[in-house]
């Protein structure tokens, strides 16, 4: 809004940036550099340079529209300043009423990669059917083929929407499990004590 007009229209990189902002404002999901390069018929390097320009313009504090890197691509979102106004007008259908069971199921699918309902039930000790169904309905997980080909159980993976809702650049941005929980050592020692007491 504030930079001199002439400069904008003559700089070819700025023209590319304008095309990219046009694409991002109508896209239904984050767009990767490759998708942007393909749509703008330009090369990835220049697309990345244009994105850098846009990141400066569309950032918190300067603009109501904010460019973010999320779910393996780039997308516009509302600035955090506008959260209150957004909350008055919009709903959060995806995360509303997400139960503990659903969150555990989601964690298992996100960390263990494609897995089936029996596998999830094995880890949680409770059937996962309704939790999985609610996650599919919300669009956070999706079917990903069947186990062992024909006749096997359907497997599930997380979707790009999952990464977007949780604000993750990719699944690699999930914290390492080892950092989340103490190792199995202490637990095993306790169980061994119990086992020995029973054997004696």
């Amino acid at each position, binding site marked *: 809004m504030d930079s001199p007009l002439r400069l904008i229209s003559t700089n070819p990189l700025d023209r590319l940036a304008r095309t990219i902002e046009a694409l991002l404002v109508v896209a239904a999901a984050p767009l990767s550099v490759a998708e942007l390069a393909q749509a703008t018929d330009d090369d990835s390097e220049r697309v990345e340079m244009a994105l850098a320009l846009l990141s400066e313009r569309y950032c918190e504090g300067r603009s109501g529209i904010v460019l973010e890197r999320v779910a393996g691509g780039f997308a516009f979102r509302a600035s955090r300043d506008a959260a209150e106004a957004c909350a008055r007008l919009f709903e959060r259908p995806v995360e509303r009423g997400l139960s503990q069971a659903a969150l*555990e199921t989601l964690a298992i699918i996100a960390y263990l990669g494609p897995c089936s309902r029996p596998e999830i039930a094995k880890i949680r*000790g409770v059937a996962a059917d309704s939790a999985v169904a609610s996650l599919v309905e919300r669009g956070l997980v999706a079917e990903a083929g069947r186990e062992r080909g024909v006749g096997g159980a359907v497997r599930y993976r997380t979707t790009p929407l999952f990464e977007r809702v949780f604000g993750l650049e990719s699944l690699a941005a999930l914290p390492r499990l080892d950092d989340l929980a103490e190792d199995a050592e202490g637990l*095993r020692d306790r169980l061994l004590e119990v086992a020995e007491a029973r054997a004696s």
Partner: protein
Amino acid sequence: MPATPVADLELDLDAFEGPFDLLLTLLLAENLEPREVDVAAIVVAFVERLEGRGEVDLEACGEFLVLIAALLELKARLLFPEEAAELEGLEPEQAAEELARRLAEYRRMKEAATWLAERLASQRDRWFRLGPAPLQPRGERRLAPQPPAALAEAIRALATPPPSVSLAHMALRFPPVSQFLERFRALLARRSRFDFEQEVGGLSRVEQAVAFLALLELRKTGEIALSQPAPFAPIRVSRADSERTPQWTARSA
């Protein structure tokens, strides 16, 4: 046996909402899968009920323990039929290690779920559009020509029974509840009463548990009456018409 607050314990589980005795009835009639039932939630509900009464009801605790143990065993066997067989051959150290590995895995997943919940909370002021923009141009989806044989193949796959049924699983199958229902009915046709422990003494623990569920089912339908002079004393089973106990029939209504 005095009236206890177990049968009419109100439950609000993922898979079931209603009194505990209805839950048992559904399980016995195989209208509900044991694996759908969150046993921990039942225990919590029961403990809350006890707490609400302000006194420890030993009778109720005893009955509850027996029922919940039977339910747990039923569920555990159904959930891990093959694992149970695998674990049986293991030394205590190995079994403990295997259990520790599983517990650690579940604990890590719980931690991961906690992290996800916190992450979600921290994203509350991030708003973005779900779905297409209001003035988005729409492209059509086009599909390349497909071979009709793929349709037949998909149906064939769906019409193929699941592969590989392990024998370990078969070995651990439960005797049907109906088997005990018939057996107890036949017994009571000959005799007016019998001793539960004596009848099931020679059976495996699993069979005993199923037999006990059959007993509850018969009580539920009003065919039998049950009496037990003291906790852990033998359970006496008799024809409903020969030895009607007011408390039981009142609660069965």
